[in-house]
């Protein structure tokens, strides 16, 4: 499915996630939290129901030409260690120089997430030894981050029904700027580790969400919405498969009315589907553990996508003391707004929050509302349009080139185009049928030159991508509607004459049988007749 991350079709492993009416293995835990935000009934303990609590930390790579504190380029899949400056390799004596673009991207993101932007934020060093962290510390914003106290609204389908959506809000605790680490590649057979520092020092925005979610589906929907916002802003390309968006999920469960349980952190989840799975697995694992009298350890876990479960991470065992310290080589990051902007200052040297605010593009929520208002389509259709990269543009192009009403166009876009693309795992951009071709086709339909049955046939031909226009296909396959009224009347008469039983049934009042006759006419004309006209003719002839 294309739309706002759907939850659970097939991903639910156990009962607690089941929909209303689903039956638990134990016959007890039947309510999912999901879109209703409900709790999970307790098991045999007989206590109050279980409440899962999910919070997220999302690392988004900033889309910028160069790294956060150095001039090296940022590029995915470049040859190992080809994008490493002296600073990135932590050569002694090198100093960080803050990249203005990264600051602007973070401010933009903060504004889009309704945060208040700190006009003075600070950088800190977070220390730990790891092969892909060459300096032995990461520069981050622990004490005073660049943006705080925001919100993110996201929608998801209620009870997995396409028709009903609910909107939820998660609070954003903070957004901090920090450095990405390099990559360690472990060669187990030769027992060596190779380090690629291309990613070391790339700017990240860490978006910290409050634990306001309660299941994998919500977490997934929130991250999908965040992803769309980032992509709309251009502050991050947010392609999860390329590691530009990575999610850590904090999960705990407790009984309603009791304090939060011990949480675990599932680290580095790199797909939205896996996020939903990982969170749900973890919730269920914790409930089961607790119900069996076990305890939950405050630990870091990883999601094994092949096994579909989370496992403790061995190299993150033991408590780390990060020995935070102010970064002495960077002065406080000062941002200005229209009021505080000093006169005679070089605009290249400062970041003006208001200036960025005025230039924010329409966010996905606004774009959806505009689509609904402008084209009269359903809200859930607007979700699909916006969530699918390039689909809105495709839709609008088609609408602009046809006389067909947008409400009708959307059906072709969602039912025909999108399902075909999904079936063949194609993106909108890769569609063999361009918006122009589809518009041509819909115009033929709209001008009643072909029937909708014929239109589907033409579309099927168009998918082959042989470069023929819809009109050519129509001509080639003789799919035009019969314009000869007399001929059509004759065919109708033939059908009536040949179907005595049906005619009698119709005359006896069973009007549904009329459809069968219409179908027969269609078959005889090979779909080239307009069913509306046929119906009128038949009715006339049967004097209905």
């Amino acid at each position, binding site marked *: 499915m294309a739309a706002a991350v759907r939850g659970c079709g097939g991903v639910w492993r156990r009962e607690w996630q089941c929909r209303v009416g689903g039956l638990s293995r134990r016959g007890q835990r039947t309510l999912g939290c999901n879109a209703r935000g409900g709790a999970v009934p307790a098991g045999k303990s007989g206590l109050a129901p279980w409440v899962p609590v999910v919070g997220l930390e999302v690392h988004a790579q900033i889309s910028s030409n160069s790294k956060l504190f150095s001039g090296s380029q940022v590029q995915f899949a470049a040859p190992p260690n080809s994008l490493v400056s002296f600073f990135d390799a932590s050569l*002694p*004596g090198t100093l960080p120089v803050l990249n203005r673009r990264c600051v602007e991207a973070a401010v933009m993101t903060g504004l889009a997430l309704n945060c208040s932007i700190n006009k003075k934020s600070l950088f800190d060093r977070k220390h730990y030894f790891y092969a892909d962290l060459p300096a*032995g510390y990461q520069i981050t914003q622990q004490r005073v981050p660049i943006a705080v106290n925001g919100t993110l609204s996201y929608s998801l389908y209620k009870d997995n029904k396409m028709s009903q959506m609910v909107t939820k809000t998660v609070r954003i605790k903070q957004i901090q700027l920090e450095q990405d680490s390099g990559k360690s590649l472990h060669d187990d057979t030769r027992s060596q580790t190779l380090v690629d520092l291309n990613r070391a020092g790339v700017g990240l925005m860490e978006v910290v969400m409050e634990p306001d979610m309660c299941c994998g589906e919500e977490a997934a929907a929130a991250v999908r919405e965040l992803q769309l916002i980032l992509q709309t802003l251009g502050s991050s390309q947010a392609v999860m498969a390329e590691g530009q968006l990575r999610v850590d999920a904090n999960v705990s469960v407790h009984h309603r009315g009791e304090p939060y349980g011990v949480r675990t952190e599932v680290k580095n989840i790199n797909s939205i589907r896996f996020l939903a799975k990982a969170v749900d697995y973890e919730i269920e694992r914790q409930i089961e553990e607790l119900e069996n009298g076990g305890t939950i350890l405050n630990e870091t876990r990883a999601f094994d996508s092949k096994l579909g479960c989370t496992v403790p991470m061995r190299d993150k065992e033991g408590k780390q*003391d990060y*020995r935070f310290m102010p970064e002495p080589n960077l002065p406080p990051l000062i941002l200005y707004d229209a009021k505080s902007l000093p006169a005679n200052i070089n605009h290249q040297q400062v970041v003006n929050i208001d200036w960025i605010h005025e230039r924010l593009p329409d966010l996905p929520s606004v774009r959806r509302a505009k689509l609904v208002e402008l084209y009269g389509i359903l809200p859930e259709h607007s979700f699909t349009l916006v969530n699918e990269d390039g689909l809105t543009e495709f839709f609008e192009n088609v609408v602009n080139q046809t006389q067909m009403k947008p409400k009708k166009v959307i059906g072709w876009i969602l039912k025909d185009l999108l399902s075909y693309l999904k079936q063949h795992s194609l993106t909108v951009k890769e569609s063999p049928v361009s918006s122009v071709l589809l518009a041509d086709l819909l115009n033929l339909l709209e001008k009643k030159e072909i029937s909708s049955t014929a239109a589907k046939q033409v579309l099927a031909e168009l998918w082959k991508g042989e470069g023929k226009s819809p009109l050519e296909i129509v001509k080639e396959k003789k799919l035009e509607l019969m314009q000869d009224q007399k001929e059509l009347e004759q065919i109708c008469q033939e059908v009536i004459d040949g179907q005595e039983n049906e005619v009698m049934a119709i005359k006896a009042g069973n009007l549904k049988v009329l459809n069968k006759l219409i179908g027969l006419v269609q078959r005889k004309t090979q779909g080239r007749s307009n069913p509306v006209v046929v119906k009128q003719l038949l009715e006339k002839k049967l004097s209905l």
Partner: protein
Amino acid sequence: QVSAALREGGVSPTELCQRCLSLIKSTKFLNAYITVAEETALKQAEESEKRYRSGQPLGVLDGIPVAVKDNFNTAGIETTCASNMLKGYISPYNATVVQKLLDQGAVLLGKTNLDEFAMGSGSTDGVFGPVRNPWSYSRQYKEKSVSKSHSEDEESNWVITGGSSGGSAAAVSSFTCFAALGSDTGGSTRNPAAHCGVVGLKPTYGLISRHGLIPLVNSMDVPGILTRCVDDAAVVLGLLAGHDPKDSTTIQDDFKPFELPNLPDVSKLSIGIPKEYHAPALSSEILALWSKAADLFKNAGAKVTEVSLPHTCYSIVCYHVLCTAEVASNMARFDGLEYGHRSDMNKSTESMYAATRREGFNDVVRGRILSGNYFLLKQNYENYFIKAQKVRRLIANDFLKVFRSGIDILLTPTTLSDPVPYREFIKEDNRTRSAQDDILTQAVNLAGLPAINVPAALSERGLPIGLQFIGRSFQEKQLLTVAKWFEKQVKFPIIQLEEVQRHVQDVFQHQKSASFS
């Protein structure tokens, strides 16, 4: 003056360079240099000579031989920090200050010795051995020390240079170069300058780029300038100061180089004598010198008043906490992976780290890393690091208040005594020594102020002692003007060193002092 000689053709850059190189060789026992870059120096001198011949020298510094402390990165020349960790390390880039010197046509003779990673106050704790104070071999010292201790052989009487920029101080003092770069975190430029009888300037934090200086304490480090006279220091400062896009902590404004007046006037100045610098361990000799200097100013018409910097006594402890914390952090990068020493231990990455760092760092560095990490632990951070930062603020405010009250310059001793013999010095460990020796100098680093050591006199033993002037932030011109005036008054004697006299026949004999400006 050498610069004028170069312009007038009295001496060529190559000759000058060769003389310095041979002097370096004959004073090798001082252990002032870790690396002598003979080849590149001669090549640079040749280039300079061409420029002079075509009448287009790059500036005052063109052809002038200089030395750089071995904790500044120099492309193509080893940068060791006097540590096993970086032995053999050749940096791919020049520190901004090194680049600026080279851009001015200066001839880089080599890299000078120091305490490992600049952690120390004696220049005795580097892997290449201690630096010996040239004054140990001066006629002035020999005459006095031999008469006193007949029993001990001359060899064991040599005195330390102070540190950690002891190599640079010794190099300037022994005439092997005309100016040298040091670094100053808690007094590392001023202390050896005092002990070696040279001028040692610690500029305001942020005035000179730290890019390429291997850090000790980022929030206090500044490149220091060691020269034989105040005018030279002003020239070098003018060439090095100013914004560097590679160091975000440098000032944004452009720096305007200045010349010092020939006849400085101090009559309108207000000189402060901070009473807290009358430390219990201060030698009577230095105390006497200090009051004599105050009288000099008084007699010249300056207003001299006693002032108070009440938080001075907490300064050294505060310095220790902040210093070790940053050291712990800065040293984290030396893990044997990207550069530097790597142990053969290959059981696991962690064991390799541990062995590398054990083998690469000396006890002093390791000790500071350990205590720094202790102070940064979550449970200690509030009690140590945060407190120390608050104290730092109080100390900075002490200075601010005094300057706001109308004081222009503070006058203090630089060291507690004249340099002590090496065998005496090593009776105490590095930590104790640093705590003693930095006592009069590190508060200035906590406050980021400019300060300068000016050689003032010889002690009874015939060894140099200096005094420190502390100025307002970014008021180097005023500070150096006062220093120059003082320099003129005290007429500090020239070192009488056999090796120097043997080697330097014409050039230095023609000139009364061996300055280049």
